[in-house]
């Protein structure tokens, strides 16, 4: 146990030889909110504008401009939706509906939702946004509305992660 812990830590701390400036954070935060009031699983993804600014130029084309082009914003929102997948513990897909996107200050938000299935005891999740592009990208997902907050980190070679309620 102590040995494996050590190795895990070393590999963790190596993932980010970030430069001194964090303008490009290469980090996104998402929330999966089980909203009892609306009966929906509401997904909000928060990206730093500056990350997305660089990302869209690599993902789409060199002149893609997420600040002023609606087309690029929509493209990026679609891309995020493709990269975020939910399944039941048994592996059945839980398709999400695109709600929209918005720019708020230094953040770009993407919204999705789906009806909360009955008798859901946990979810499997995949969040690949920007990770293929940037090896150091970390996507944090908070799962809220099901007791205390649970957090999943998608980084390095994390594939599907599971949380049980």
């Amino acid at each position: 146990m102590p040995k494996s812990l050590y190795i895990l830590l070393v590999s963790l701390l190596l993932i980010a030889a970030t430069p001194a400036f964090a303008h490009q954070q290469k980090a996104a935060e998402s929330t999966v909110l089980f909203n009892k009031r609306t009966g929906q699983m509401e997904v909000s993804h928060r990206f730093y504008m500056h990350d997305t600014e660089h990302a869209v130029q690599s993902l789409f084309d060199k002149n893609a401009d997420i600040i002023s082009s609606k087309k690029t914003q929509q493209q990026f929102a679609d891309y995020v939706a493709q990269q975020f997948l939910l399944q039941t513990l048994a592996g059945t897909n839980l398709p999400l509906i695109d709600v929209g996107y918005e720019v708020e200050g230094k953040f770009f938000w993407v919204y999705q939702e789906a009806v909360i299935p009955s008798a859901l005891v946990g979810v499997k999740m995949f969040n690949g946004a920007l990770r293929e592009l940037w090896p150091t990208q970390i996507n944090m997902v908070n799962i809220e509305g099901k007791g205390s907050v649970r957090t999943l980190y998608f980084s390095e070679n994390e594939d599907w992660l599971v949380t049980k309620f």
Partner: protein
Amino acid sequence: MKTRTITTFAALLLSLSLTSSANATAIQQTKGDFKDKFRQLEEVLPTPNVYRNAAGEPGENYWQQQVDYKIKVSLDEAKRRLTGSEKITYQNNSPYKLKYLWVQLDQNIFKDDSIANAANNFGGIGRRGPYTKAGDAKTPAKISLGELRRQQFMADNELGYEISAIKDSKGKKLNFTVVGTQMRIDLPKPLKSGDDVVFSIDFAFNIVEEDAVSARSGYEHFEKDEREGGNDIFLLAQWFPRLHAYTDYEGWNNKEFLGRGEFTLEFGDYEVEINVPADHIVSATGVLTNPKSVLTSKQRQRLEKAKTAKRPVFVVTEEEALANEKEGTNKRKTWKFKADNVRDFAWASSRKFMWDAKGYKQGGDDMPFVMAMSFYPKEGGDLWKKYSTESVIHTMDVYSRYSFDYPYPTAQSVNGPVGGMEYPMITFNGPRTELQKDGSRTYSQAEKRFLIGVVIHEVGHIYFPMVVNSDERQWTWMDEGLNSFLDGIAGREWDPTIPWGVEPRDITGYMKSQNQVPIMTQSDSVLRLGPNAYTKPAAALNILREVILGRELFDFAFKEYSERWRFKRPTPSDFFRTMEEASGVDLDWFWRGWFYSTDHVDIAIDKVYQMRLDTHNPDIDYGRLRQIEADKPSSLFVERNKTEGKELWVDRNSDVTDFYDTNDRFTVTNKERNKYNKFLKGLKPWERKTLERAIKEDKNYYVLEFSNVGGLVMPILLELTYKDGSKDSMYIPAEIWRRTPKQVRKLIVTDKEKELASVAVDPGWETADVDVENNHYPRQIIPSRVEAYKAKKRTDKVSRDIMKDIKTELKADKDPKQNKKDKKDK
């Protein structure tokens, strides 16, 4: 299929945090579950001593080593190789005898067998960018091209230092032992306190391609340049063997360079001679001492002109740089630089550079004049011409107000392959323009924000940690957190419409998340460096300034910290102690909560109830009691009987009545009045006076109950809304949580006509409260983000495609359709 549950990870983290906290808590609460959130930090902070005192000041015997370097270095452009020789004077100011010296060999991080690389290989191809396709975990893992490029580059190039000789001042060889990115040099005889030793190191290394290995320096190749073979920009940092720090709090800083934890170094004086191709322009830490040998007289005239210019003056113009990058030369030139009292030395060299400069009249005694300069290739374009040097000056202007005058003669911003990195007097910044098909160069709004933001941030680092010399290898937050806080101030003074800085709300998602470490964690062990070392401490300082101390107290204390530790080496405890004793406010709870724990802020208002003063006067109290009884809803049973038309006995027999039909149980008799009078007689004069006044004023008494869900104690910011529509704000200091950290009550007394309608906690989102649903009494439905988004009409002007819309033709007045419509409208 690879499926890993979160519990494994959480368990590992838990065991980690347990081990670390076990060391810190000698005193334990073993009965009950009381947590002393206000426990003084003295038992956690290092014991004050003659080197660092209890006030957070350098102690009476404060010392630090001094290391002076004289370096001659030569750049082989074709081989991308640096060869140098350095003469080091190590001054032992410590009270101790040193038998050996430790040197940092940062270039060795690129060696195959470095700890960083060995551990890098552990995950095999799985580490960087390995990736199974979304939705189908059975597809084989892919390796990114970027990672392949990195591996190929490392395989094709011999990387790391080649140390050819280490000699003492008489030319005698010294024994040395290389341990990864560190090297021990054994001294022929122990270096006594107060003595110095001179020795030399000859070194060489192959420069890494920055884009291939993601380092903090290296070369960038421009293959499309007209010159045959293209051109390079060289950014050189961590390029010479540098002495490790030896300190009163840690001895030698023997922490392997793993890539993330940056540097801790000693101050010293540098004389550096840089030999490069004659057509290169060199930017470096310090002041150029041989301008006559490397600059043309025209360039020197322009530099002179720049001193008093309103806008930056080109020392090398774009046309000159373009002509330069097309040619090449076999000739060489040596640029000589001198830098006093700096903790490092970096430089940049390229024939692609244009160079602009503008003098900054700072005033004051320390450094009345500073030359601000920028160096960039054509790829930097107008973005750099307009904003780089101006941003450098703006940073000095703002930072100096919050800390101290910029202490060096030059401040430079250089464009190259590094996104953003800082060194004394010189910073490397990445933003670029894009070449369009028509040959023009454009840049996006985001790139403009990036340039201004990154220059402010990196030049800000010249203050923290280049002058306030905190230990970056240990504590990233001490320079990044403080600097992110200050760059937010400078950014908002540039143009507040650009979203700068850190708002408390930005950090709530991270702070409520499960897996995190306290800010007080060594740099290399922090799980998420961005939110942990930049955003959270910057948000904390913001809250400390705006909410807890107020600007006046905070700014005074922060300036005091900066001045105390200018050109010295502070530790976290020096910061905590100074902020506390200069502001005069006990902040131990704040440091504990924000820096030493992973608690988050979540304060809930659970209940509000009203109380009314008993007057003891039966003629008042009995009437009130009657009203209370009357206000209660009547029994459903009785109501239903009424609805059904049940006739009552008393109604059917209205001729039978008695005393109690006209006198209810709240009827006052002289018995009660006599008792009241006796009660009044028994009161002391002051008691009677107080009661009389209270009865006359008949104020409203409300008790507010709060609970601390998040664990982090904070002041309670209240907004009280009254039935008449008016509002009051109230600040309850964090100390209210001192003895009952989970739950507290607050009594609020309002005038008779000020009846409370609702209460809100932190309505301005100033404290990073992660759950606003429990911030209202009575509870309100707070729409979730998605609900709010769906509800609001899109008014977000930022998403307009103005570049396209601006080409829209203006419709002429004679447009018949439009005229018709206009008429109709009238």
